[in-house]
């Protein structure tokens, strides 16, 4: 270092910055514990989704019937409980004229409401009732031979209505609830806020701050080094969850991946900022994710325009509606903004947030000792 004989290339701040990007990427690799916990949680989610898909959880047929049927006769409490939990397929089967007449013939009408019991003495009314009550069956099995078992139904390519239903049901439960409500915020929060959070927790930030790199550059390098992790677990989680979701999942992957990717980057930039500002960023982030985002999502009014997930969800909603799926199956999305707006906001948010973070970081002092 001190001998003048060796002529060396001068130090370059850009090279240092690039090293810092790589270095902050590797820091996360070092925290093995976090990797393990992430992998286990993600694995659990994926196994669950795969398992649910295998069991036809997103199929209309496999769903519990919306209407809870109560038996007319209360003297048989044992039959009450199972009856309340019929799936749509069973419910449709139950309401078919065949089974209703068979039940009447067998004198076993316990499982029917008064208006469902066949009334052969009034043919007009009975014909109308039969027609109405057989609609579910018709809708569910229009392309499937009558009498096919519900397990087989899921394997036969269903009609357009059923595909749509399956896709929206999958979107609602897996994408909106599990992915947007758990996988995405948790992983982006953990990794993005950890970029500065772990350095500050282990009081090693001073080593970076004494290097000849501009402070705003340190902020940006930390963000870029963390982003692959957020994308790996956020967007990677999305892909894994979609691939585990069968045909509906594959359609969701094709339709929603831009929104998921934009959401991941936006969240990552936000939580990176949180990590740079707060001493305990995870707790602040959790409050944001599980209070602000969830409360705001169900509140009417314009407050939700300040929620990042709202734009990602708007984008998904518009995409689904554009493909002809029933948008009203996605909850609380009636006030969705247009795709163009959502795109703009989601693209601008990371840039604005990161620029703000760079500005803030270059002005703040970081003291490790208190």
């Amino acid at each position, binding site marked *: 270092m001190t001998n003048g004989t060796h002529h060396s290339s001068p130090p370059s701040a850009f090279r240092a910055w690039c090293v810092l990007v790589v270095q902050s990427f590797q820091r996360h690799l070092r925290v093995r514990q976090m990797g393990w916990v992430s992998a286990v949680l993600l694995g659990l989610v994926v196994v669950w989704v795969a398992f649910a898909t295998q069991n036809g959880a997103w199929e209309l047929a496999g769903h519990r019937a919306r209407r809870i049927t109560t038996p007319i006769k209360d003297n048989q409490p044992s039959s009450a409980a199972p009856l309340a939990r019929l799936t749509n397929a069973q419910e449709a089967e139950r309401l078919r004229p065949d089974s209703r007449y068979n039940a009447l013939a067998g004198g076993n009408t316990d499982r029917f409401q008064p208006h469902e019991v066949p009334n052969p003495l009034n043919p007009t009314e009975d014909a109308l009732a039969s027609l109405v009550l057989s609609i579910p069956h018709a809708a569910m099995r229009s392309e499937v031979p009558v009498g096919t078992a519900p397990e087989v139904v899921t394997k036969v390519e269903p009609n357009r209505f059923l595909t749509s239903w399956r896709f929206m049901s999958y979107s609602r439960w897996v994408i909106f609830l599990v992915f947007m409500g758990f996988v995405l915020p948790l992983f982006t929060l953990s990794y993005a806020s950890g970029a500065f959070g772990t350095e500050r927790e282990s009081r090693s930030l001073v080593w970076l701050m004494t290097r000849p790199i501009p402070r705003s550059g340190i902020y940006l390098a930390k963000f870029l080094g963390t982003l692959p992790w957020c994308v790996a677990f956020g967007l990677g989680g999305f892909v894994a969850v979609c691939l585990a979701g069968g045909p509906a999942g594959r359609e969701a992957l094709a339709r929603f991946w831009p929104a998921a990717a934009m959401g991941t980057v936006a969240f990552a930039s936000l939580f990176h900022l949180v990590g740079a500002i707060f001493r305990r960023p*995870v707790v602040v982030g959790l409050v944001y994710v599980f*209070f602000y985002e969830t409360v705001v999502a169900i509140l009417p009014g314009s407050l939700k325009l300040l929620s990042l997930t709202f734009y990602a969800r708007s984008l998904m909603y518009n995409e689904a509606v554009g493909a002809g799926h029933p948008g009203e199956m996605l909850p609380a999305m009636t006030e969705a903004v247009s795709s163009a707006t959502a795109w703009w906001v989601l693209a601008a948010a990371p840039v604005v947030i990161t620029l703000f973070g760079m500005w803030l970081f270059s002005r703040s002092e970081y003291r490790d000792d208190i």
Partner: protein
Amino acid sequence: MAAQTDTLLRYRPWRGTPRGPLYASTALARASLKLLFRQRLMWGLFALALLVFFGFFFCQYLLVLISNLLDTESVRFASLPVTVRSIKRFFAPLELDGTAHTFGNFIWYQGYVLVIVLALAGSVLVGNDFAHGSLPFYLSKPIGRWHYLLGKCLAIGVVINLLTTAPAMILWVEAGVLSDWQSYYLDHFTLLLGIIGYGATLTVVLSLLTVATAVLVRRTVPMAMIWMGLFVLLPMLSRWLVETFKDERWRLFDLWNNLYLCGLFCLNADPATIRPQPQPAYWEAWLATAAVVAACVLYLRKRIQAVEIVQ
């Protein structure tokens, strides 16, 4: 000669006998609480918890206030007329009528804040001791490792009760004041005991769980991830498993639900009135909770026996 030195130095040796290590645990708990309440974030979370409490507090009052009105009458909210019936229907899930479910629901909702508070408490109280090497400082005192853990659990227990039991008791008092207080307090005295029972269960289970996870992962981020796994993912998962397999025992995966069931058992609620239905039997919930406690204790025991806890 000794007397002379005494006057010179003005020093009197302390002649008392030290109290047992259990007192050390309470001192440890006091110190931990001070540490926790120095965090500004903690006060923010408390404010959030107060929000939930005031929600219950004033809604309970509101429902009594409008109970004298007819269902079809309407009240003006921000110049929008709202019928009394829809207000009642809106608040119906909370069951703000001073029965067992009022308090059960309150603690259930408070759970959302509690989980975050506990993640913070775990990392501040236990994680920091490991990360910053302050553990030897405690263990060099004449107390055992269990006393250390007891102290930490006590501190966490105080926080838990501040968030759940204490406000629930205030709600109980309020419920009595809003109705005929003499008969309410007499008739529903068991409810007060039930609240205390619920609080005690929460205290034991959650403080042990917090300490155990904090000892396991130490850092805030993985700790928060584990908590979210436990209190967000597992409930989702268990709800779905119940739906799919039509077996309510899958709900036992959901620790918060188990604690809710245990609490409603203490509050002596009818199992058939618990939402969402179906629910596992009370004894099953107790068993699952006890299993969690046992797992925590066994884990802590293992870690404590290994000298590793220090490093």
